[in-house]
């Protein structure tokens, strides 16, 4: 019985952390927000080199053929560093969708390009993902609607609440596959998104703790005030108890089931991240509200990802449907 990363996974996370810590993410994110994806694409290539972009790509197309447990280890680090881009799409859902459609040459080529870091993909899947995240810089946009997968074409760019995210409205085009249940691919997307949220929560807590140790008011570090330290303690508790759900969801998905656990992970990681974001801003005060300070990179990320890949409300309804047992569906609204 294991609910913790293996030694290999810890080493993978540490390597990724080193790569990202050296990558000047503030600069990457600022450029990305200003519509200049060059540095972000360079980082994407570096991530490919570290084996991140091909995690879910089958080995015969150059990938790692890794499992959901490796996926969350990587995505937690990506969230920890607030890496911009359509990550849960490119790393989790799209490779899974393409693998199911890999009887045709197009998907196979895209899979290989994903693994090599030459391709970054986005995804539209109404109503969960109504827009393509970073559709303007993505090389491939898929549209998953029912059991059909189509290629999508970006139209206008919309601003997002998250400055480092550029939304595209998308027109569905050529049919890529049909008759495929996108379920598992979407679960992997939810899982990746949850891991990003948890990583972001952890980063927000770390930065807030550092700030609370250094910033002094009334002659002492603000972290010596209960009003500050107790808020941070609550964030630490939320993170501490969201993490096991994330790991349990990965374990459940690995053995081929797990909607209940995936939803529980999404709810808990989202809650922890939202709490961490609110507390981080409050602890930082005005300086956290500026673009000059780096906090904005996580604040927008968290608020947006919590509502993407199924709202907390949707996931709660799914949990109760699962618990109600066969034949009973708990609609998003409960019974009437």
């Amino acid at each position, binding site marked *: 019985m294991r609910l913790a990363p293996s030694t290999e996974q810890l080493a993978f996370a540490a390597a990724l952390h080193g790569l990202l810590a050296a990558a000047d993410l503030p600069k990457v994110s600022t450029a990305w927000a200003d519509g200049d994806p060059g540095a972000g694409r360079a980082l994407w290539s570096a991530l490919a080199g570290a084996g991140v972009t091909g995690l879910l790509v089958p080995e015969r197309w150059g990938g790692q053929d890794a499992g959901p447990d490796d996926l969350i280890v990587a995505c937690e680090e990506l969230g920890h560093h607030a890496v911009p881009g359509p990550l849960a799409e490119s790393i989790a859902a799209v490779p899974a969708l393409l693998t199911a459609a890999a009887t045709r040459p197009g998907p196979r080529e895209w899979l290989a390009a994903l693994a090599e870091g030459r391709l970054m993909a986005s995804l539209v899947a109404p109503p969960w993902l109504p*827009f393509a995240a970073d559709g303007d810089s993505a090389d491939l946009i898929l549209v998953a609607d029912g059991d059909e997968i189509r290629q999508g074409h970006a139209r206008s760019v919309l601003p997002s609440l998250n400055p480092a995210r550029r939304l595209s409205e998308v027109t569905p085009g050529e049919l890529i596959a049909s008759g495929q249940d996108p379920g598992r691919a979407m679960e992997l997307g939810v899982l990746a998104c949850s891991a990003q949220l948890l990583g972001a929560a952890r980063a927000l807590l770390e930065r807030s703790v550092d700030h609370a140790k250094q910033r002094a008011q009334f002659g002492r570090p603000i972290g010596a005030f209960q009003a500050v330290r107790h808020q941070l303690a609550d964030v630490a508790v939320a993170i501490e108890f969201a993490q096991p759900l994330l790991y349990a969801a990965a374990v459940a998905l690995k053995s081929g089931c797990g909607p209940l656990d995936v939803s529980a992970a999404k709810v808990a990681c989202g809650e922890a991240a939202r709490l961490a974001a609110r507390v981080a801003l409050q602890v930082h005060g005005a300086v956290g509200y500026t673009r000059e300070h780096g906090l904005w990179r996580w604040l927008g990320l968290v*608020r947006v990802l919590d509502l993407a890949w199924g709202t907390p409300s949707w996931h709660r309804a799914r949990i109760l449907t699962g618990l109600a047992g066969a034949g009973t569906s708990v609609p998003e609204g409960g019974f009437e």
Partner: protein
Amino acid sequence: MNLDLDDAAVRFRDEVRDWLAANVPAGPLPGVDTADGDRAHRSWERRLAAAGLAAVGWPVEYGGRAAPPLHTLLFDEEYHAAGAPVRIGQNGLFLLAPTLLAHGTAEQCARILPPMARAGQVWAQAWSEPDAGSDLASLRSRARRVDGGWSLSGQKTWSSRAVVADRAFGLFRSTPGQNRHRGLTYLMFDLRAPGVTVRPIRQLDGAAGFAEIFLDDVFVPDADVIGEPGDGWRVAMSTAAHERGLSLRGPGRFTAAADRLVQLWLTTPRSRPVERDRVAGAWVRARAYRMAAYASLERPVPPSATKLFWSELDVLLHETALDVLGPLAEADPEWTAGYLFSLAGPIYAGTNEIQRDTLAQRVLGLPREPR
């Protein structure tokens, strides 16, 4: 207990409602912190002033109507319900003006208030410093006595509107030996005077909503001291009460947002019952804030309680709206702008942590924390 408006109040409310219906611009004005927006918002203020609506509670000689506080409340509600533009002059109108009317000389009021009402002068606040945020009394910017006035030096920060404003007001340490609340003086100064440098700070949303102000030997005549030199803390705290209380944040902003939230929820195709609870709860709180405003005409509400309530209400309203919108929220410019603005509420005008301490001490009489 009786909520009926008297005839004068009904007539006033109808006048405001009709005037706004005929005059509020159809679309939003450009951002207030841009050059275009600055022009458009000042022009709007001049129209308000021409209609006698810029500051109805002020004395007539300064551009008001000497209307009772109830009318100010009614104006606020109608103004927000009509979706009228943000008041570019709000720092002056709602924060400096009450201080001047309470502590200023007749000369100061006559010189400063009329152009403020016409937005001929827009004001910025200059309170916080890099090392004096929650602990405002630790501020270090200095006012040095010079011939005929004072010379200001130091650094102020988180000064909202400073990028577009003409003048600013704030606290400076005028007696070097004295500590904390003692030896501070409340001064007004020209943001275009020699020695002033304003550096815009980009906010979360990318706009330059506030700025740093660097002061290097900036001259201020004696006529621009409010109250007695050295008595600035006491004078400032009356502004702080206004800032935290109903002057800055009348109920109109929140009742209008609550009504929009209810409409959003009712018209969202798949209305989410989980949010139902919070939508109704937010509406109840906005209503509570409105009723408290009416009640405050007879019994004042502690400013710390008011600040805590409106700032948390604003976050609740906007967080809930985003959750109702679900994955569409991030692309909704109006609600996301309001959301980002709401997040600043628990921080500015004295953080909510400071407000809770103040309330515990002054209202509940709990012992002060050792510092």
